[in-house]
């Protein structure tokens, strides 16, 4: 996007245009509202199983995924709605998947933790902690072998760092110089256990030990995430091998809908809410003149419509036919 915009607004610092900032704001607001609505629908008994909401972490998904090109690949963890929406998956079909309906992105076979849209190189949410890290390295190895100029982004939480697959993957990626960006969303808790009680190391230092560049950034500042991700993707794309980003963030809601949150205080949550990524960007845009209250209210109304439409779509979508139960266990010959 060029800085000479149709609307004459001052270019923001850090090389992000007002149009891009508005895109970021819109996406973050969409994710926030989508998640609030999903929580509401879960409480109403429309959504079942585990539901992990992304509220609070929006800047991580939006700031990073917007750097990627269409040909790039994404693997992520089970708190995956925000990443799916930032990648441009249809909110209607994402909501339908949470409902378990036939029009869901995974046909109702995956659920909240397993969203896929291979047409957008969105290869899924993974619900075994760190189990998808080797897959991302394999995808990157394959694109590198075929000289496809693609970068693979692998998103995971701080809870992954204690898993063996984390270390195996970083080692393999560095050893073979595969074009992977490891993106750690450090929200300070692995379910209910604080990171300081589960890891005796510093995350970015571990990454540096595998001889890859690593940066710890403010994951509640979408502009900072975007700028660091640009560096990371450029590094991986030009053949520099893997790059590691640790984005410090915070989830506002419980680990899942069934979590009573006995492990953290309300005051801690309130403290992080003061650093809210949406408020931060909104304020910066208002201050710089990139946004006014009228436009902000338009965005709010737009997001409300999009989420309402997603719910209506999910409600209307049919249940998967029972006759399809055995479909797609195997790829049938001749397909």
């Amino acid at each position, binding site marked *: 996007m060029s800085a000479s915009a149709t609307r004459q607004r001052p270019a923001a610092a850090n090389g992000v245009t007002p149009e891009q900032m508005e895109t970021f704001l819109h996406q973050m607001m969409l994710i926030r509202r989508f998640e609030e609505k999903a929580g509401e629908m879960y409480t109403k008994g429309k959504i079942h199983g585990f539901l992990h909401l992304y509220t609070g972490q929006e800047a991580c998904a939006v700031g990073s995924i917007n750097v990627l090109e269409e040909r790039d690949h994404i*693997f992520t963890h089970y708190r995956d709605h925000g990443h799916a929406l930032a990648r441009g998956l249809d909110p209607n079909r994402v909501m339908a998947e949470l409902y378990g309906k036939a029009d869901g992105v995974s*046909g109702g*076979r995956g659920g909240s933790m397993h969203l*896929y849209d291979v047409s957008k190189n969105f290869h*899924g949410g993974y619900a075994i902690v760190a189990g998808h890290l080797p*897959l991302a*390295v394999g995808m990157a190895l394959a694109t590198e072998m075929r000289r496809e100029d693609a970068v693979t982004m692998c998103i995971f939480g701080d809870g992954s760092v204690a898993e063996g697959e984390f270390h*195996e993957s970083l080692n*393999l990626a560095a050893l073979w110089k595969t074009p992977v960006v490891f993106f750690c969303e450090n929200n300070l808790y692995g379910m209910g256990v604080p990171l300081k009680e589960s890891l005796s190391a510093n995350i970015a230092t571990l990454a540096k030990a595998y001889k890859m560049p690593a940066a710890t950034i403010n994951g509640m500042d979408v502009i900072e995430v975007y700028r660091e991700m640009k560096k990371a993707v450029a590094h991986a794309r030009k053949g520099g091998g893997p790059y590691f980003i640790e984005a410090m963030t915070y989830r506002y809601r419980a680990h899942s809908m069934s979590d009573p949150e006995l492990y953290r205080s309300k005051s801690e949550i309130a403290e992080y809410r003061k650093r809210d990524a949406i408020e931060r960007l909104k304020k910066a845009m208002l201050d710089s003149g990139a946004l006014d209250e009228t436009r902000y209210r338009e965005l709010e109304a737009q997001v409300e419509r999009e989420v309402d439409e997603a719910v209506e779509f999910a409600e209307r979508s049919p249940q998967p036919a029972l006759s399809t139960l055995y479909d797609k266990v195997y790829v049938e010959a001749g397909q």
Partner: protein
Amino acid sequence: MTEMRMRDALREALREELIRDDRVFLLGEDIGAYGGSYSVTKGLLEEFGEARVRDTPIAESGIVGVGVGAAMAGMRPMVELMTINFSFLAFDQIVNNAAKLHYMSNGQITIPIVIRMASGGGSQLGATHSHSLEGLYAHFPGLKVVCPSSPADGKGLLKQAFRDDNPVIFIEHTANYGLKGEVPEQEDFLIEFGKASILREGRDVTLIGYSGSVHQAVRAADLLAEQEEIDAEVIDLRTLRPLDMDTVIESVKKTNRAVVVEDDWRFGGFAGEIASQIMEKAFDWLDAPVARVCSKDVPMPYNRNLEFAALPSEEDVVEAVLAML
């Protein structure tokens, strides 16, 4: 036809597939310069280079996961794990990712990967290198499980594994690597999955085996013929998923008796699945309960005498047959 050993037949299959399809590449511990712990990949590094014959760190979960990720990208990787016991370090990747992603993604993702591993006892390698656990992988929908008993089957089934769009667990019995046999020479010698082979025709009893246990069954059939004038039919299942029960049931309807022979443990093992299906599909034809001859219910001991006592033998098979007549 050419006579070759199992390990050479498997190598031929890998070589031909590497030449035929540039999406094929190999990953594994010591498969390159070392030539593979059972010499299956010997010489392939020199012929195809280190990008396609890739030595890996000792990181089973990582390398199987890398293979699965590359398969998602449309490559045709093969991962070699030294033994089936090591595959447990990669269990998450095999059962949670390889077996399930096609289904969970509603068919968007396919995982055309071949994961090879060695199984079987009899070489005094102790309890962490000697078990036969083919049936364990056959438990999971989404996987195919292949376990050849002869060099020809090894070649034809391994080549077929690379043509399959599903994850294939290809399990080789260590005692079979040096086994010699006639192997067809034609370029595209393939053996379809889910087709058992009848190694010996007989009227009196059906002996069912796969991988290493096929050989105990054949030797037992010879003993039964020589010593007891009992005419045993021997079936090699060749693949456990898909499973060719039609051939087994047809045979049992003829012989009215069946013994399942396997190196796996009896308790909760695959022989129980076969016995159960025979009961469900041919109950009225049975003249005796289906017998199972399996490993004893212990971790494999190192001591030679104890190890042989733990493994099923042809004498055990003969005894089981005589008990049901």
